[in-house]
């Protein structure tokens, strides 16, 4: 089962290479295969099917079509997910208010994959972290009399245990995203949690209740049971509360609020039309306004910026303030594209708009103030997200740029093509001349046949970014030489060809149907926290078609995915077993 879950990741397009593309080293002697099953999990996705038939051609782009039989309703799998770090933190904030220090208690969680697509099973350390965070949350509530009274009101003459019971019903219902009504369940909370704490005091009993509820599997995992209402052999409807939860986590990154829960209770979310009708107000809500921006930020891996390491001898300015400014600059730009530039993918990739403050003014030949303002007279070539210092710093080495990381990002995250792994036994690399530029050093990849097969898919794209150093600042020189930012796109389908510098690269990418489709795929993964598969072809087709129809306006993505079968329904619980 677990293995299948891993295998199911491969709705992704893997770049199939010719036998000569990645030669040398691998034990099999035929490193990436000649098209015979070179895609892991072949057959599990549309792209994989196409990949296996491409033997002999040098490379391939993912196919753009979807195999959707009209009338088919298959929502695809919906594996149980543990709350992401941000979902956890937002939820706790919505449940109990601000908890100082809770992020530290959670430890340095692994941010396994960009959208939480791969989740390892929870280890003891994880549970200890959750426990410590829950303790922090409990003590924050109990340490604040007003907060305690608001969450767990109890009149002076009331029976304390009755107050605790009312607290379980209100608090746990919100935490578990479903009404807690079962008498035995409530009693379990009281006997195992409240009663042991109440030996010390009533407030301490409430504290232990909070601790326990915030560690409960029902809280930590997103559990869906569904209803008995079948839509097709493969699909059942979700309960109103489950739908509210999907909406809230997808659009808000947190639990449903009172209004949404009320709508679930009154049955408003039992039809597709009813669900879609909630989008306008949910996206207008402060939590929803940032949904698309959050997606773009995660897509670019920007939340990892604080973990990015730089050589502070070369870059003494690399500190939390600068990183914070880079993040704010990025979010300001993305918001501007979404609000003022039609939300267009084209603008996201090519816009000349730049926001600066005093930390970043130097990047653009200006000074900048305390607050971010739009930079006038920007002298550095600019191309939307592709030249954001936050993004370029992430896609760099500690002391130098990285054409590999940058090219790899374009290949994998913007074109949705997966690169083959480097071979196990590579021949000795050629010697490197000291003092050479990054580009010169990487040029060995082109000379060595063992390297070139894979690196020619990354480096020539990444070279286009060479005008930007390890901190994403424009430069005309690298080492002793002028920067050569000429690059080439290959194996992309319609945008293949040479280009010079990132501005031209941005224009090419913005014209690409492959990139538009990739973005829609990424949104699907973000919104549903799973990879698309062949059974999702109808959902994907609907999503891609509406994105195209809207002229690649990112603001239309939320509704497009909410309308899909993948979002509206789930498999019956016994579906996998029945196959």
């Amino acid at each position, binding site marked *: 089962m677990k293995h299948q879950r891993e295998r199911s990741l491969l709705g992704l397009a893997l770049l199939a290479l010719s036998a000569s593309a990645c030669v040398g080293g691998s034990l099999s002697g035929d490193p990436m295969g000649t098209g015979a099953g070179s895609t892991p999990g072949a057959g599990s996705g549309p792209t994989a099917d196409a990949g296996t038939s491409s033997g002999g051609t040098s490379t391939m782009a993912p196919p753009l079509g979807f195999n959707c039989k009209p009338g088919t309703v298959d929502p695809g799998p919906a594996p149980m997910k543990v709350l992401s770090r941000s979902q956890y933190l937002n939820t706790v904030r919505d449940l109990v208010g601000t908890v100082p220090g809770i992020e530290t208690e959670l430890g340095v969680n692994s941010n396994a994959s960009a959208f939480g697509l791969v989740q390892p099973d929870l280890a003891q*350390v994880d549970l200890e972290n959750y426990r410590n965070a829950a303790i922090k949350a409990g003590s924050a509530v109990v340490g604040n009399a007003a907060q305690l009274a608001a969450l767990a009101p109890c009149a002076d003459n009331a029976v304390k245990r009755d107050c605790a019971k009312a607290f379980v019903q209100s608090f746990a219902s919100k935490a578990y995203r479903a009404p807690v009504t079962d008498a035995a369940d409530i009693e379990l909370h009281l006997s195992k949690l409240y009663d042991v704490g109440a030996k010390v005091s009533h407030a301490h009993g409430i504290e232990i209740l909070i601790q326990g509820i915030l560690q409960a599997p029902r809280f930590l995992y997103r*559990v869906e049971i569904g209803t008995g209402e079948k839509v097709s052999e493969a699909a059942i409807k979700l309960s109103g509360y489950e739908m509210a939860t999907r909406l809230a986590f997808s659009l808000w990154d947190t639990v449903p609020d009172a209004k949404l829960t009320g709508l679930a209770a009154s049955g408003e979310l039992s039809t597709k039309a009813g669900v879609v009708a909630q989008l306008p107000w949910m996206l207008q809500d402060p939590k929803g306004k940032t949904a698309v921006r959050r997606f773009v930020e995660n897509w670019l891996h920007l939340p990892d910026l604080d973990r990015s390491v730089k050589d*502070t001898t070369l870059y003494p300015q690399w500190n939390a303030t600068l990183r914070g400014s880079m993040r704010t600059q990025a979010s300001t730009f993305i918001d501007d594209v979404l609000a003022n530039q039609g939300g267009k993918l084209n603008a996201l990739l090519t816009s000349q708009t730049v926001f600066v403050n005093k930390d970043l003014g130097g990047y653009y030949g200006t000074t900048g103030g305390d607050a971010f303002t739009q930079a006038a007279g920007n002298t550095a070539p600019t191309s939307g997200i592709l030249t954001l210092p936050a993004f370029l710093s992430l896609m760099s080495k500690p002391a130098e740029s990285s054409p590999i990381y940058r090219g790899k990002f374009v290949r994998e995250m913007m074109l949705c093509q997966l690169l083959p792994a480097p071979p196990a036994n590579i021949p000795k690399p050629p010697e490197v001349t000291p003092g050479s530029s990054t580009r010169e050093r990487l040029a060995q990849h082109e000379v060595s046949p063992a390297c070139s097969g894979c690196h020619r898919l990354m480096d020539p794209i990444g070279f286009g970014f060479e005008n930007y150093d390890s901190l994403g600042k424009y430069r005309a020189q690298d080492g002793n030489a002028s920067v050569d930012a000429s690059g080439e796109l290959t194996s992309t389908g319609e945008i293949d060809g040479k280009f010079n510098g990132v501005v031209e690269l941005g224009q090419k990418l913005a014209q690409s149907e492959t990139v538009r489709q990739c973005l829609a795929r990424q949104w699907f993964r973000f919104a549903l926290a799973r990879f698309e598969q062949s059974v999702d072809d109808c959902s994907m087709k609907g999503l891609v078609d509406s994105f195209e129809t809207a002229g690649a306006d990112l603001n239309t993505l939320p509704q497009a995915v909410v309308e899909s079968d993948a979002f509206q329904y789930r*498999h019956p619980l016994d579906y996998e077993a029945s196959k």
Partner: protein
Amino acid sequence: MNPKQPIDHRTALSRRKLLGGLGALTVAVTSPIWRTATVFGADTKAPAARRFIGLFSANGTIQKDFFQAGNGSGVPISLGRILAPLEAHKAQLMTLKGVHMYSTVQNVLGKDAAVEEKPGGPHMKGPGAMLTGGSLQAGSFTGSGGPAGYADRVSVDQYIAGRIGKTTKFPSLEFGARIEGQEPLRVVSYRGANQPNIAVDDPWQMYQRIFANADLSSTQLAQLMTERKSVLDFLSADITTLKGRIANEDKPRLDAHLASIRSMEQELSNSAVSCTPLTMPAKMDVRAMENFPTVSKLQMDLMLLAHICGLTSVSTLMFANADSWQYYPWIGVNEEHHELSHAGDNDAVANEKLVKINIWHSQQLAYMMDKLKATKEADGTNMLDNSLILWGNELGAGNSHTFKDIPWVIAGGAGGALQMGRHMQYQDQPHNNLLVSVCNAMGFDDVKTFGIPGVCTGPLSGLTA
């Protein structure tokens, strides 16, 4: 409690507190503890417990400076430049050449696997295989030449913890120093498929984990224990209910969750003993490049202390993640380790730096061996005599990405099970066999195979005493 009970001055561990029952056992250990400490709480009549410590360092080695020359096997060990800092311990040291991580490229039949069956780049495959004798699952991690997921089976430290870790506060502890970057570069310890034990690389967090609540009174601690136990009961009950309602394919996740809850219960029921080192230095940025040696030192101290205090018998320590881009400015290496490791064999300058890096790592092992040796067991032996330290790497050499000739070191007395002080030269043996030998040396003679069955052919020959 009788205040006149004797105090063991060698360790400043209070026997009074040991006998005082649950909650009363907050024990101060003088720091530095290493001046001939005695293993805490050990029974003088029983033979000392065997211990396993797994060590990882990254990016391969420089073979000619690591392994001794000549083809002799079972010959007295002779230390080259890299291992020279271990000279004082060479009687309790063994190097093994010709032991390859075939499990990264072979299938259950012991045949070369198709590439798509072995996902991940070489730097990713190595840490996943090093202690598991397995390989990576398919997945979406692409940081280092993916795509791949986590490893597909249990690692040897966790196997051992499953057999000897039931009575200690922690079945095992996973330490790291600056383990960064993409998964699965950051993991060598696995409870099972897709069950990584991601190491804690913040010594202050580890300190909290190991020595939490040391400042509470016995009454407070007893109440805390009761509450924690009751919360865990609640969580177990919740899992049981939930498991009855969800789809079958989701149930393994809850089983894994429940197993982790059981470990926490074990931690509670064995927490009567806690040692507290007196001081931790002021908190520093554990992710800062230049703090690597300080963080490493603290993690080594905490790890050894956890063993000495009887809080665990199994641990691993990762010195940086696989594919490490750590700099070593304190020894004059101001370049990325990984970048350096790609230098050609004739690049004398780069190779000299790589040798320096590896020498530094040998010094760390020497430090740990010094401390373990200074720790007396109740039965008169020292803790090093009873420990088996396995030091491995994700690659044999960085510039060829080879999985062959991993620079394996076995250190410690291994309870007398292995004939130490020798260099072993094998003809293309799978490292699975080494993992079998490790299990056997730890006292589990029933282990005949480890990791991918077809790859493993039984224990390595000629190792045992």
